[in-house]
């Protein structure tokens, strides 16, 4: 008993600064918007919610940066350990990634859902990026499977719950690596914006395509590109077609906002945010691009930008504001106001759609036979548009579009191009009339 009290006291003393990119997300918080993303795993058998809850309760203490509440300081927000009861596993809903009020749900910034065979983990972006969240999802899933009597080893995304959380896992890796002498500007040209009928509060339209990884890989290889480059090019192609169909007075460049997992370039074990954005662009004002030309453009853009030099310069720009002594002592509400203005007037307008690719997910040996596939969702877009999230597991690759508008033209152009390229696509949706 005494030991437990002492442990509680110790826990109370720890708190975390928000990491560099996490600072933006809480400022964008509105009554009808939160930066929440979702990671799902589809198992082969129906989920037992009681056991799942048990697995969650076992697992979460291993992840101290997820069992937190967000608080306001005078100058910055911070995360403090949350010892309120929960979070609880709940029945899934059609309009997921709902706004997350910081004061409700016992102040937890994560949600756990189950539906039939699917277990979903929702996380506010101020805690972690997709890769960080994947550790939680897989560790909970592994413990759930263990509770069912299966033998699952630790490793990869499954962490040992008997171990204590390591310091490297909770670090802000940005500050460690932001050392570049160059600081590229933040602002870019405004991009084409998808116009559509905004859905009433609160709806999230999801259209997902399930494909064979090897089929896509073969096709991408045939073009001489990687899977990411190929799907990037298909989405750019879809957006260009959509812009043409809109018949705008003035055409704008079509840009994707694509998060890059920096762990690939800067070794870090952090479970928090460690991503930066790159913007593959096609400018239709230069002329009509054929699909192959788009793909070449994307291919070389990626080769050119994706290296530690360019990415370091990028994160140094962000770190500079965090380190600037004048900015640091500005009260929080002024920071909130400026960041929000900058985001909605500049940053949000410089991309036409979001696209993220988590790549091929691996699980510890012996676990794959219980899992059918993974799904990831970028969550509700900040402005009226559609966001695309890609993940693959074994031979199943899923592309999930999450949008806040009624029209599904972009999705239609995207999947039709894949079908034209001879890829078999199965579509699933949460739209109620389908």
């Amino acid at each position, binding site marked *: 008993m005494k030991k437990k009290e002492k442990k509680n006291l110790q826990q109370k003393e720890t708190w975390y600064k928000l990491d560099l990119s996490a600072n933006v997300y809480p400022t964008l918080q509105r009554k009808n918007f939160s930066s929440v993303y979702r990671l799902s795993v589809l198992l082969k058998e129906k989920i037992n919610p009681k056991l799942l809850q048990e697995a969650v309760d076992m697992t979460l203490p291993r992840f101290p940066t997820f069992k937190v509440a967000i608080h306001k300081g005078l100058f910055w927000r911070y995360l403090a350990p949350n010892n309120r009861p929960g979070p609880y596993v709940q029945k899934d809903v059609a309009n*997921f990634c709902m706004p997350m009020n910081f004061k409700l749900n016992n102040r937890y910034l994560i949600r756990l859902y189950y539906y039939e065979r699917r277990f979903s983990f929702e996380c506010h972006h101020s805690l972690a990026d997709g890769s960080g969240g994947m550790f939680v999802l897989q560790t909970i899933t592994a413990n759930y499977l263990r509770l069912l009597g299966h033998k699952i080893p630790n490793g990869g995304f499954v962490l040992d719950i008997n171990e204590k959380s390591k310091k490297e896992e909770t670090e802000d890796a940005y500050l460690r690596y932001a050392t570049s002498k160059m600081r590229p500007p933040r602002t870019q040209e405004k991009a084409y914006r998808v116009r559509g009928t905004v859905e009433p509060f609160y709806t999230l339209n999801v259209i997902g395509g399930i494909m064979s990884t090897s089929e896509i890989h073969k096709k991408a290889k045939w073009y001489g590109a990687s899977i990411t480059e190929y799907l990037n090019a298909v989405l750019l192609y879809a957006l260009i077609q959509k812009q043409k169909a809109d018949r705008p007075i003035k055409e704008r460049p079509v840009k994707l906002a694509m998060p890059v997992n920096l762990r690939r370039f800067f070794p870090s074990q952090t479970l928090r945010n460690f991503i930066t954005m790159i913007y593959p662009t096609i400018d239709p004002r230069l002329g009509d691009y054929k699909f192959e030309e788009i793909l070449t453009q994307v291919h070389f853009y990626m080769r050119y930008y994706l290296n530690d030099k360019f990415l370091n310069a990028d994160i140094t720009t962000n770190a500079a504001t965090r380190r600037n002594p004048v900015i640091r002592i500005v009260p929080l509400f002024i920071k909130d106001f400026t960041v929000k203005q900058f985001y909605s007037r500049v940053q949000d307008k410089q991309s036409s759609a979001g696209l993220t690719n988590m790549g091929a997910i691996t699980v510890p040996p012996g676990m794959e036979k219980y899992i059918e596939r993974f799904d990831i969702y970028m969550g509700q877009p900040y402005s009226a548009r559609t966001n695309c999230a890609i993940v693959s597991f074994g031979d199943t690759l899923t592309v999930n579009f999450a949008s806040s508008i009624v029209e599904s033209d972009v999705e239609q152009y995207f999947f039709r191009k894949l079908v034209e390229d001879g890829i078999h696509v199965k579509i699933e949706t949460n739209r109620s009339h389908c």
Partner: protein
Amino acid sequence: MSYCVNCGVQLDRTARRCPLCNTPILNPKETVDTTSPTPYPKEKGQVDQVKHTDLAILLFSVLGSTSAACGLINFFVVDKSSWSLYIIGVCFMLWVFFIPAVLSTKLPIYVFLLLDGIAVAVYCFLISLNTPSRVWFLELAVPITATITLLVIIFAFLIRNVHASILSGAIYLFTEIGILTVSLECFIRSFLHMEFAMTWSAIVLICCVCIDIVLITIITRSRLREAVRRRMHI
């Protein structure tokens, strides 16, 4: 296994239409599966509303105890004037003002504005209890509060439903200032039993009309508007 004839994608067995192009699925060999679970749940989740119950209780108790204390002191420490009514009135007014901020009700904003107006009128009534004559309350306070409340409600309606921009907002504002000054002079003159005439309010009204005309011209002339925007942009 059904495919969309239009898009060529495979669809779920439970799907009735293609999610991409809305084409209904007609597969004589395989009818729509209505028993199996759909890929996503059908039930919609409700977004919880934040309840500032604690704040509401705190506010109520602070304001309530202040008015109660003042009332008691006024009652027991014998004093002919009932000064505590001023404080009770202020507390009541503040409480009404804070209702929309504290309780997230679904009532439209106009109801709250109306309640605010009534609260101000009630406060004036409490003051009038301490003044020798109550004529000013009926002939000045009530009509003026009513006019201002009405104008504010109309302003809110125009901004929310008709057209909201800085220029059109300015037009509404100046028109209402004109109307308000004219009605103010009317009320004051009738209170003083003077003949009806427009003197100082006429000057304000003319100024407002002039400003309105300029603003309307700017709005209707798009080139002029662009020039103003360019030169006045912030």
